[in-house]
């Protein structure tokens, strides 16, 4: 690592970037480890209670933990030796330009508290959960048989949406309640006056952020359904199963997730595209499906670090356009290391669970 920094330091841009990274590395490790432990152990503890809350609750706990951590002498004062990068300048955060928020810290945190209460209530209170789970909606589709005999039975409601039990319902209720309270208290008007900016309406803001995010997800879901129902996933799974020994596949399973995230620049899209294939492969090789799916999920998250669209977006946000190659050179070794470690963990888990 020292040789790398020495070589990089020969250029002024490299010296600046490396000084920044070295300072961040040494300062951030304890914080990263504590937050990672809260998230990791939190997930292990929460999953048996409700998998839907397994990411949300530990993330909330980690967010709360940031406050006492910020009081720790190590983080109380600004870190020394960090050169200001373009992304750290005031003008890089146009949304925060100096204006005093119209609500207090508690008011700003209240929606997250409400979301937590609603999500926990809808998941843990069994009668409420059962009641919310009743209404559902889905389109009818006839039976389909492919030329190679892959058949899908007819469905009155294909993959029905439980609209009130879905996590989206909780978020919608929270958003509506928050909007109502903020509107009644005049927060939107006050913020507009204080920030001196022409803010978009809530509806146009919603369309502006929801539509661009929804189109690729819908397209990937339809593509994944076509791959599943046409038998492509089964064919691919049988092909891979024929040439890869069981534990070699277990080791490589997270690599498929990484590849999916690299191709689509989205962990979610990677899961949508390859989860079915991974389950089919796990069945074909007699491996525990949950372990292989966990490897796919981990791979999707790891692959995000080298996904081209994310790298370009990160470079653009931090004002270092054109440094995408340097970013990839930094992230690739870590991605490969994470891939190998996840592969080893998958093999150990597969051997243990079997």
């Amino acid at each position, binding site marked *: 690592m020292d040789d790398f920094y020495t070589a990089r330091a020969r250029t002024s841009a490299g010296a600046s970037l490396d000084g920044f990274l070295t300072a961040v590395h040494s300062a951030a490790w304890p914080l990263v480890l504590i937050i990672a432990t809260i998230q990791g152990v939190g997930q292990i503890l929460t999953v048996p209670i409700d998998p839907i809350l397994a990411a949300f609750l530990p993330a909330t706990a980690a967010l709360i933990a940031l406050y006492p951590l910020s009081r720790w002498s190590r983080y109380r004062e600004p870190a020394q030796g960090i050169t200001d990068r373009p992304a750290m300048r005031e003008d890089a955060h146009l949304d925060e330009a100096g204006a005093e928020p119209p609500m207090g810290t508690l008011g700003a945190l209240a929606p997250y508290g409400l979301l937590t209460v609603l999500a926990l209530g809808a998941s843990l209170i069994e009668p409420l959960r059962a009641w919310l789970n009743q209404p559902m909606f889905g389109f009818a589709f006839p039976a389909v048989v492919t030329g190679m005999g892959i058949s899908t039975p007819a469905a009155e409601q294909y993959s029905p949406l439980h609209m009130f039990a879905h996590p989206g319902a909780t978020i919608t209720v929270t958003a509506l309640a928050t909007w109502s309270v903020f509107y009644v208290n005049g927060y939107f008007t006050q913020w507009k006056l204080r920030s001196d900016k022409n803010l978009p309406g809530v509806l146009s803001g919603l369309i502006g952020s929801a539509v661009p995010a929804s*189109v690729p997800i819908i397209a990937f879901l339809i593509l994944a359904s076509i791959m599943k129902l046409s038998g492509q996933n089964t064919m691919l799974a049988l092909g891979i199963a024929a040439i890869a020994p069981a534990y070699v596949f277990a080791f490589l399973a997270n690599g498929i997730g990484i590849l999916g995230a690299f191709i689509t620049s989205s962990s979610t899209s990677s899961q949508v595209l390859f989860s079915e294939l991974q389950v089919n492969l796990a069945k074909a090789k007699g491996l525990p499906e949950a372990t292989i799916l966990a490897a796919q999920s981990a791979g999707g998250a790891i692959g995000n670090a080298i996904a081209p669209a994310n790298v370009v977006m990160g470079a653009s946000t931090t004002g270092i356009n054109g440094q995408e190659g340097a970013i990839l050179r930094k992230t690739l070794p870590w991605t490969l290391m994470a891939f190998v470690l996840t592969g080893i963990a998958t093999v150990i888990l597969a051997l243990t669970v079997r």
Partner: protein
Amino acid sequence: MIKKILQNRLSYLSVSFILFLASLPLISFGTTNDWRIVSGLGMVALSVAAVIPPLQRILFPAKPR
């Protein structure tokens, strides 16, 4: 008109989004009731929705920054 829509990211993605949403009930009703025209319309809507984003990139490539 089409050029104008394709030059605005939110406009062409909104058209794609609406066509995706419209295609699913059309294909469902068309195939379950054997209404060929309706299911055909659904497939056209689905195909056009899927083609719009890549077509926009080909016709109006992003200018290098």
